[in-house]
């Protein structure tokens, strides 16, 4: 049984918990664009400080590009991507979120290929979060159904995901994304249903309807180029 006094002194020992010094200065650099000051020549301080800051800034960013979840520089990579996303307009958001999800999937594939099991859960969480972002961005933008390029990319994303699932021999749950396929497929079918189509395209539309009945929504989306020509 611990006394209250002992407990308080144990709690105070938790002050030992500190972040790694290197990470502290790297994170500061990436947030504020500054470097811890050390200078060779006092006369060139401003120039050197600027140069070193710029070099470290770009160096860290360049190195962080290859970081995968669980790596030391991964948080820097995320900060950079998040800062870039501030400048993305609402119209470009679906495209940007798809690219981001593709990146997360590539990281996940890299981890799976190099057998870094410990990093896998975090990488899967990252991918699932980015898949949710894709789902959200697609629900916000009107008229996305006729954006063949975005639909093509979303189909490509799912195919890559399926390849990875085969490698991992497991299913990665992305419920929100699956709902997005359904919504998009239903939107396309109802949209093309209101248009005057050629005989060939009517045939494609009925195939789409059939696939939708069988809940094969991704295959409905794959038919879009045929009807959208």
């Amino acid at each position, binding site marked *: 049984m611990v006394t*209250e006094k002992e407990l308080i002194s144990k709690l105070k020992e938790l002050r030992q918990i500190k972040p790694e010094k290197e*990470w502290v200065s790297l994170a500061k650099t990436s*947030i504020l664009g500054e470097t811890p000051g050390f200078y060779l020549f006092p006369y060139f301080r401003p120039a050197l400080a600027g140069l070193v800051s710029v070099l470290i800034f770009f160096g860290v960013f360049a190195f962080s590009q290859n970081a995968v979840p669980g790596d030391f520089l991964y948080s820097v990579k995320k900060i950079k991507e998040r800062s870039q996303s501030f400048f993305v307009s609402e119209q470009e958001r679906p495209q940007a979120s798809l690219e981001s999800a593709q990146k997360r999937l590539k990281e996940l594939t890299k981890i799976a290929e190099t057998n870094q099991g410990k990093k896998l859960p975090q990488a899967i969480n990252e991918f699932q979060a980015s898949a949710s972002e894709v789902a959200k961005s697609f629900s916000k933008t009107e008229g996305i159904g006729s954006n063949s390029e975005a639909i093509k990319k979303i189909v490509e994303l799912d195919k890559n995901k399926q390849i990875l699932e085969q490698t991992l021999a497991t299913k990665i749950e992305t419920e929100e994304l699956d709902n997005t396929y359904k919504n998009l497929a239903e939107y396309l079918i109802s949209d093309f249903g209101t248009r005057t189509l050629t005989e060939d395209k009517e045939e494609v539309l009925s195939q789409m309807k059939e696939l939708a009945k069988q809940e094969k929504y991704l295959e409905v989306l794959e038919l879009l180029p045929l009807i959208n020509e």
Partner: protein
Amino acid sequence: MSYFFPIIIIMANYRKEFSKIYDQCINKIYRFIFLKVSSEEIAQDLCSETFLKGWEAYKNNPKIKNPSAFLYRIARNLVIDYYRAKGRTQFVSPEVVPIIDPNPGLEEKAVLNSDLGQVKAVLADLKEDYQNVIVWHYLDDLPIPKVAEMMDKTEETTRVTLHRALKALKEELDKREVKEV
């Protein structure tokens, strides 16, 4: 063009001021988050995001009354969001489990079994208010009036919460001690 340089100078000053705030608060905020998420990588991620959001807000309003309390508020919200997202996107496929080593390493075991590791683990299991009051008062050495301000409670209520938090921590630790025996 004549407005351009004053803006640069003002921004440089803000950066300098926020840099000081960063140096003063980074250890405390990191520890605050780490004790809640128990993972170095996640703590680093959430801590960077806390300061990034803090910096974005500070640039727009450098007259924030209590930057430390402001950063704690961001950190708290981010931790809550993290757990919400984790709950929502929890990975459920059982097949992936064997890929990860379910047994902690020797080093991790040593930490978990140590007294300090146990205090840390029990603290992380307490409810949020209890965790915060303990961390702010005993680890960050904030006096009760300050803690009360951060918790948006009266001093009296904060004292009672602190007492209950310590009691809950002690009881849980005693329970675990008895189980081990």
